[in-house]
């Protein structure tokens, strides 16, 4: 079905955009803090997939030997930074949720 929507042409950037839209939809309707953090974590790989896909060259090598035709390394390296920040931010968001629940519900129940 997806193939019929994208005309049989589903590459990394388009998949990324679809993931971003799914995450946005979740962020607009989900009524749970954990769900919302997960939705943000769906948008994030969407952006990473989109960005990394931009540097992809069909049939090219990994950028290790400069003589051969290689994919663009810059998007991949930049997305590494984004992913690292993302992991840290997610853990902080989850910690914050624990604190919020503790304050609201007393924190004694497990």
């Amino acid at each position, binding site marked *: 079905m997806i193939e019929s929507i994208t005309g049989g042409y589903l590459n990394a950037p388009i998949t990324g955009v679809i993931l971003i839209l799914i995450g946005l939809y979740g962020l607009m309707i989900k009524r749970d803090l954990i769900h919302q953090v997960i939705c943000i974590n769906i948008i*994030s790989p969407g952006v990473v997939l989109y960005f990394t896909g931009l540097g992809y060259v069909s049939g090219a090598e990994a950028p290790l030997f400069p003589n051969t035709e290689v994919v663009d390394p810059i*998007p991949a390296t930049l997305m590494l930074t984004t992913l690292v920040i993302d992991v840290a931010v997610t853990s*902080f968001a989850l910690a914050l949720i624990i604190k*919020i629940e503790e304050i609201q519900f007393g924190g004694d129940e497990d």
Partner: protein
Amino acid sequence: MITLLVALPFLFSFLLSITTYFDIGRIYRKTIFLTGIFAPIPLFLLKIENLPIGTVLGGWTRISGIEVAIDQVGFFFLLATFIVFPLVAIYSLSYFEGEEEGKVSNESKFFLMLLLYGSLVATFMTRDLFNFTVFLEIASLAAIILVGSSDTEGAKLASFRYLMLYLLSSFFFIFSVGIIYVKTGYLNFHLIEQTLVMDTELKVAIVIAFVALIMKAGIFPLHFWLPDAHSKADTPVSALLSGLSVKAPVFGMLLFLRYTSIEFLTGPLMIISFFSIFFGIFMAVFQTNAKKLLAYHTVSQMGIILLAISVLDIYAAAHYVFAHALFKSGLFLAVGPLISSEGSRNLNKLTYRGRGSLIGAIIILSLAIGGISPLIGAFGKHEISMRLNGLSLYLLYATSIGTLLSFSKLNFELFKSSGNGSERIDQRIEKMVVFFIALLTISFGIYYYPKFKPIDVLFIGIALGILTILKLLHVLEWDVPRFYRRDVDGLTKQINFYTMAFVLLNILLIIFVLKIYQL
């Protein structure tokens, strides 16, 4: 050499973070903190003789290297940082001394403040889209954690809301960086400028980037996170957030204004800026919480900065950023001692009676934020008004009157109530810092704009007149209705709604751009 401006704060913040594993005295930690804050300043003073300066790290070419530079625009951002941050650091040493140690230790707050310092300086020096994104993220994250580390009721909720909205806008910003990279092939702004061909895709990318930056700068209609985050944080942190942290996205807007073309976007930006200005003032007038009143004025003042960007005046924007950093941080720091001695943020309980230097400072800073000449606010506002005519010029005058009205109310309430708290003895340093900032707003104001405009007296008169009428009609006692409850349920609904608003603004502006293109 200028990279040391960034490296030193980061180095000392790292040192401060590892001291938590060793049993060393507080005084050493405070010394590390202050060294980290003050170390870059002599370097900065040495370098400002011959602006602009710039370098590409490691001797690479622009294409493969990372470029940093200080020019006449970045200078004002850096000057604001290097004035406000040290003063807030001195203030916070005294402030946190008097406060009870909360669940988060003061040393961790100092570590985060250093991190915020280093990343802000880096943001104001970068000429590269991706480094801008990364340093903006570090700065915002440090700010978010600082908000969350406050023990004020509701600070955690404010921090979470800030976090989610900041992440959402960050991902959209990175998405637009991707489009710009594909269209131009570069991330360095100089190289982008050389290969720039403004077509529809690039316009859409710039629109998405601007909406993300508007969210990060807390401008109406995407200001939702700002009032709570800025008012619930500890007072020195509020001063840093309202004074400096919201200026980082503005610097991004100025980079776009300088190196790409945003003429196609000026109309919507001007409309957004006026909405932001008047919405901020409207909400501020009805607040009874002193810090929230100031936070809503940040929404309003950021509108004025966006107005400067919408008239494509890069220097006016930089000058007003500098002015706002001074008087807004000063105002937050000024209400801090009042709040800690009364133990309340309610304007009806706070008072500045019997505190000579604070009265003077708050009145001077209130006049500065109203744009009264020859104080610092007048300079940038005058430059913006030169670019406006007709209705927009009168709206800018109305801004001054509205801001003065709101601050007349603040001063009136602070003068009226008698208060019952006892003055703490150790507030001397706090008062001195505030007074010093007030003096700076006067001296920089006279240095940059040594004129007195008689019309300003008329503005003060009108503002006082309107305040009297509103007081007589008891309009100011009206409670602004709350749409969401202050709990987890309300928070999730807020995030739902705010995401929709963010997406909607994106869609509206993109539709606007596409239509213009077809015409």
